[in-house]
């Protein structure tokens, strides 16, 4: 279902990738400078990247073009203390009240901390049925590609582009290049979508997909539940991509059906007929095409300060001298020093101070269930602070309905309210200087979780295992 003026162009003649099909369907026109003007079906706002956009919009005397296609939430600076409200984190009040006021002034639906639908943008967009297969969704946040797990184009942008979308409901972008990463082979025990994407960063590097739209394909991807696909697509930016997606299938359609804002009845049937076309043609050519053999992937844990600094939990901190590239060698040496580790030391056994289960990467119900399976009947190790922060209020409520909060409480984990929390250290949840945190989030950058914080990224089960043992632990050895 393509508008007449859409370009039918591809690197492989008439065969199209799923990304090209969706892009073309959103193509308004080719701009004189070679960029494409694409229509934005859904625009999601959060408090830290929208305030200045509204301010500049007002200064220019411009209106929000399509408030009915726009939704706002509060997630980054909110307090996650149980029972919190908009004023609980004093340092967050200004941005939270601006988000609320701007949404109100422009008649934009707003899911604030007092709303049962509140949560991290990338968790609530799929959960609400706001993100749909084949739609183009924009948010002022780099992890917007999360919704690619539904077969949507999720494009993360800066505040100027947020302003542009508010004013025009379009985005002017160079069409990303196409890239496919094929995952074949069976995942071994304890290997999750998080491990697959960390391994991808480790294998190809954090700039591997610069300027690209990634399609994650292969039998191992087809076998992933939708929430795992959201995790996978979430970290596309960590390998440099503009976006990443998985072609939608029956699992996707079952996930979307009956969501609050998803089409229903005849509209759903019509949507599904179109969604079934959303797959790459067999002879479509990708500008870059690489593969990962899942059978060789162990549960992963990062040792450095970039998502590409990662290894199997049964491996060791590398010796920088082993890197043939001089720049990589220097970066690795600096990372190991920052992390307070030694080359050659085993990853398993590194003692941790904090275990953080949360973030847009790994705080959906299935993530919390995986962590609870490990936590059940065990205790958080002495001296360790362990936090579980559901990705959204609906996730929290669903988990509580299943009794997961009791499992975590009994094991000595904190059970908190939904928000970005300790992933981004822009709220009250901060790793103290020099402390070592194993986290289910997405970035292990220097100072990311707080000044001099040290971060090890891993899957929810791995983080729960570390919480109860007090050190990085191979989940496959937890019986």
């Amino acid at each position: 279902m393509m508008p007449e003026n859409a370009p039918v162009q591809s690197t492989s003649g008439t065969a199209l990738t799923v990304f090209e099909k969706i892009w073309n369907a959103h193509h308004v026109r080719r701009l004189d400078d070679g960029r494409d003007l694409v229509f934005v079906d859904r625009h999601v706002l959060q408090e830290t990247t929208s305030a200045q956009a509204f301010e500049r919009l007002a200064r220019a005397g411009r209106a929000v073009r399509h408030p009915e296609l726009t939704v706002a939430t509060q997630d980054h600076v909110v307090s996650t203390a149980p029972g919190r409200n908009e004023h609980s984190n004093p340092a967050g009040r200004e941005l939270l009240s601006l988000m609320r006021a701007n949404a109100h002034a422009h008649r934009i639906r707003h899911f604030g901390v007092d709303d049962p639908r509140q949560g991290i943008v990338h968790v609530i967009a799929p959960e609400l049925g706001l993100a749909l297969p084949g739609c183009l969704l924009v948010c002022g946040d780099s992890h917007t590609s999360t919704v690619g797990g539904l077969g949507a184009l999720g494009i993360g942008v800066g505040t100027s582009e947020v302003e542009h979308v508010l004013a025009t409901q379009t985005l002017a972008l160079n069409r990303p290049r196409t890239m496919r990463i094929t995952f074949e082979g069976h995942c071994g025990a304890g290997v999750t979508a998080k491990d697959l994407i960390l391994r991808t960063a480790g294998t190809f590097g954090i700039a591997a997909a610069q300027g690209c739209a990634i399609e994650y394909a292969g039998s191992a991807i087809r076998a992933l539940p939708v929430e795992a696909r959201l995790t996978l697509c979430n970290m596309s930016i960590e390998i440099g991509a503009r976006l990443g997606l998985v072609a939608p299938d029956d699992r996707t359609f079952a996930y979307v059906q009956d969501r609050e804002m998803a089409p229903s009845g005849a509209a759903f049937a019509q949507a599904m007929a179109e969604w079934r076309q959303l797959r790459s043609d067999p002879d479509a050519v990708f500008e870059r095409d690489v593969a990962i053999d899942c059978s060789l992937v162990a549960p992963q844990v990062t040792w450095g300060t970039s998502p590409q600094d990662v290894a199997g939990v049964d491996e060791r901190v590398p010796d920088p001298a082993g890197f043939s590239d001089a720049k990589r060698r220097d970066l690795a040496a600096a990372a190991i020093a920052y992390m307070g580790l030694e080359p050659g030391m085993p990853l398993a056994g590194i003692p941790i101070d904090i275990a953080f289960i949360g973030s847009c990467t790994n705080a959906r119900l299935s993530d919390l269930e995986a962590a609870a399976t490990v936590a059940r009947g065990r205790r958080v190790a002495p001296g360790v602070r362990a936090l579980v922060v559901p990705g959204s209020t609906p996730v929290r409520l669903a988990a509580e309905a299943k009794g997961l909060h009791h499992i975590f409480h009994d094991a000595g984990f904190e059970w908190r309210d939904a928000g970005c929390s300790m992933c981004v250290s822009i709220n009250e949840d901060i790793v103290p200087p020099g402390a070592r945190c194993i986290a289910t989030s997405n970035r292990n950058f220097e100072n990311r979780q707080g000044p001099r914080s040290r971060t090890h990224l891993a899957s929810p089960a791995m983080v729960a295992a570390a919480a109860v043992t007090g050190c990085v632990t191979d989940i496959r050895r937890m019986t």
Partner: protein
Amino acid sequence: MTPFTELEGVMAVMPVANINTDAIIPSPWLRFANADLGKGLFGSQRYTEDGRERPDFILNQPPFRSAKILLADENFGCGSSREAAVWALEQFGIRCVLAPSFGDIFYENAFRNGVLAGRIDAATFERLREAVRRHPDRPVVRVDLAARSVTAPDRTSYVLHVPAARAEALLRGEDEIAATLALEAEIAAYYAAVQVARPWLYPAAASRGDTV
């Protein structure tokens, strides 16, 4: 947007790859709508934990305290979409970053704020770095956008890679939103057509119990 044409000034060198936007503007400066971002630029590296300047950090050293140009290695500005990374550079006084490659979102953000993100070859990176090292008394570089050139302190010029359309928009200081709004009729026609073609997608279904 303030046009960018030519720029001559002190160039600071941070010869590191993958400088991410968390490093360029750390999260403590993102908690408030009107934080002093110029002061926050590279805050984690620039200050001690009690807020004193670290003398070993380049932007704390004369003459680089007044740097107008930054030279960095590949993948500059990767990571978070925070546009405050560009605002911080600009408010500090840096209106041009030269690097072999940039993170995609940073690259877009830079041009929309009149900051030039100029790509240079890996070899040029090394030569510029070396040229500045040899002229510690006058580490001044000249960037000419129209000519797509960078001139080192030793007067050698190198090629600056900036896509033509981006360079023109920067030279003119173009208001991108105004340019798109000029296409409003076309956008409206598109929306009218796709509302018929994809009625299941538009508008986003109202959520239950909503009060706007």
